[in-house]
């Protein structure tokens, strides 16, 4: 456990020094911010999905709750940013409690489907209401916070990093406390857990609320960073599934799996999206710019990036059900 605390501290120190090496490179900074965000979201999801084994397929709802609450308050009032983020946490926790009241009565497939249904209701509601900007979304302009330059990347990089480190610390604290044992017991066998005096309903809800609160902060930071939100950007089922995939590919139920998954998937998605993969092949002299392979890649790789994503998912589930971290660990059980 001490080793893991050292790990988190080292990670925080290393990551915090990155901007000083990076210099003025907004593009890379943007990718890193996305990575940190996905890592934080996946780690937050991991508390309820990985530790308690409750695979919520609706985490976008909490991310979106944070993003929407913060955006609405920022545009409609002069409430300070931290308070807006706090309100976002509150909103997400409320939705989480409401969701928990419904879905935690169910198990397995029913749980997964119900969590999707709740998230879809949240999405459609945001889509239909006026206050959320409905289908038009919300554009936030002229936000200030202290003397921070919100046009630069640093505040968001550090905010996301802070959130990620906090999430990791909370994960570690939870994991090694009574709560952690209870969540793991629930994951392994709900009936056995109940027979040991664990209040399933209470602990599952606690895990979900912590997870939702952290996800909502990610949403709030996202909203202020991008300055525009709509339902397809912050409340979509696609986002929920991406969060789960990130965790699964990295290693579900582990501390560093979500971080590893985010680093890998975000860079992969970006490399495919912007055809950096093709460029790399050209630059390294493997193929020439005029070759048919490059023109094929140029024309199709962007098209194909979701396809590649799908292939990786399938390969991972079939061959690495314990994620990449699972590869590095000694086989623990048969």
């Amino acid at each position, binding site marked *: 456990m001490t080793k893991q605390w050292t790990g988190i501290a080292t990670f925080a120190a290393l990551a915090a020094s990155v901007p000083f090496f990076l210099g003025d490179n907004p593009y890379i900074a943007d990718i890193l911010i996305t990575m940190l965000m996905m890592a934080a979201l996946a780690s937050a999801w991991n508390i309820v999905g990985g530790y308690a084994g409750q695979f919520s397929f609706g985490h976008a709802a909490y991310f979106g709750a944070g993003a929407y609450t913060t955006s609405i308050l920022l545009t409609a009032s002069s409430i300070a940013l931290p308070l807006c983020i706090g309100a976002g946490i509150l909103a997400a926790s409320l939705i989480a409690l409401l969701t928990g009241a419904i879905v935690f009565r169910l198990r397995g497939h029913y749980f997964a489907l119900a969590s999707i249904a709740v998230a879809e209701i949240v999405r459609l509601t945001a889509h*239909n209401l006026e206050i959320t900007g409905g289908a038009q979304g919300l554009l936030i302009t002229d936000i200030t916070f202290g003397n921070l330059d919100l*046009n630069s990347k640093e505040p968001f990089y550090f905010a996301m990093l802070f959130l990620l480190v906090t999430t990791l610390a909370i994960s570690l604290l939870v994991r090694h406390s009574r709560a952690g044992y209870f969540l793991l017991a629930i994951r392994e066998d709900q009936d056995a857990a109940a027979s040991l005096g664990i209040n399933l309903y209470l602990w599952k809800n606690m895990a979900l609320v912590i997870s939702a609160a952290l996800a909502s902060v990610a949403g709030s930071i996202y909203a202020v960073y991008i300055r525009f939100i709509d339902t397809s950007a912050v409340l979509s089922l696609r986002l929920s599934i991406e969060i789960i995939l990130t965790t699964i590919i990295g290693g579900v139920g582990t501390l560093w799996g979500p971080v590893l998954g985010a680093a890998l998937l975000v860079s992969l998605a970006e*490399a495919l999206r912007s055809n950096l993969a093709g460029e790399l092949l050209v630059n390294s002299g493997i193929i020439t710019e005029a070759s048919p392979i490059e023109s094929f890649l140029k024309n199709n790789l962007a098209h194909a*990036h979701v396809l590649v994503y799908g292939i990786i998912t399938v390969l991972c589930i079939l061959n690495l059900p314990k994620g990449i971290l699972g590869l590095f660990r000694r086989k623990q059980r048969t």
Partner: protein
Amino acid sequence: MKHLFLALTAALTIFTTLPAQGAAPVKIGFINSITGKEAQIGENLTNGATMAIDDLKARNIDVEMIREDDGGDPKNALAAYEKLVTRDRVIGVVGPYTSACANVVASRADQYQVPLLVPAAAKEEITMKGYRNVFRLNAPADVYSNVLLKSIAPFRPGTIAYIYAANDFGVSTVKTAQVNASTMGLKEVANEKYQQGQPDYRATLAKVKAAQPDLVFLVSYDADAILLMRQAKEIGLTPKAFLGAGAGYTTAQFAQLQDISSMVISATQWTDDVNWPGAADFGVRYRARFGKDPSYHAACAYEAVRIMALSALKARDSKVLRSALTAGSWNGIMGPVRFASYGGYTNQNNHPMLVQQLQAGRYETVYPAQFSKKKLIYPYRR
């Protein structure tokens, strides 16, 4: 396996940080939705942009256009823009297609001082925030309803019903239509917003039919437009006119289905029968090359890329390019283009939108009079 993953991670980290190579001529960027839910319209923009670059090449004008996909996600659009301006060092960017993405990128353009030319996104606020580096070629959403209702005003309709997709474009357009309609004294008798992609709209249409409107104002994308009109015919919804704002009511596919599309009036940014220079020729060459009719998105992208490329070639620098765009004027397949500030807009091309009606399976421009050869037929008869 372990080593593979380590290697893969290392490779990814390296090449995302590698600088782009070469000192090519002048570089511009093009951000578009190649994947994602907007991909089908994105493809039209891609085709238009490709044609523009090839046309310039044929005239020995070499401009390098770097394409980026945003997948319809504002986060990706921002990453794409930042990559283009900081890593690829483009001096101007055309795009993005969707309003959501354009909104986000537009809000950063002044920060990086690299001009952004929005080819086809309709949301008004994109050019209403006073951004100095944001230009828009197409007419914003309010013009769609404005021009449609103006074209029909002489016939003095009394009531109007709205049926529209619950998306950004649908909601924005209907909001302005309601304002325009109430100044015209039109009474609203039904307002039906629907989620896209439903297989069955009959219940919605039956409800509208019961309200007996003179005008039915529709905003839909491609496929929904066909479903709606098909089912409207079955249900027997026969107002005096169907007004289709943009997108789904201006496609070739829609025109071919004469039994349901005949007489539908629609607003568009562009047609190939308009008397703007090169419009007809563009249509012919587009059809020959891509095997389908050009949509106005293709024309918008073509003209935006052409304007950006020509201006960038002369300017060779972002700041000069901005002044060139602000000061310049062009006349091409989109008619006369000038980026001006008026009515709350900044750097907005006051593009005249066209009203067309499907007559005998062809889109005929019927309004404004100076661009049209045919007369609008009203009331509608099946």
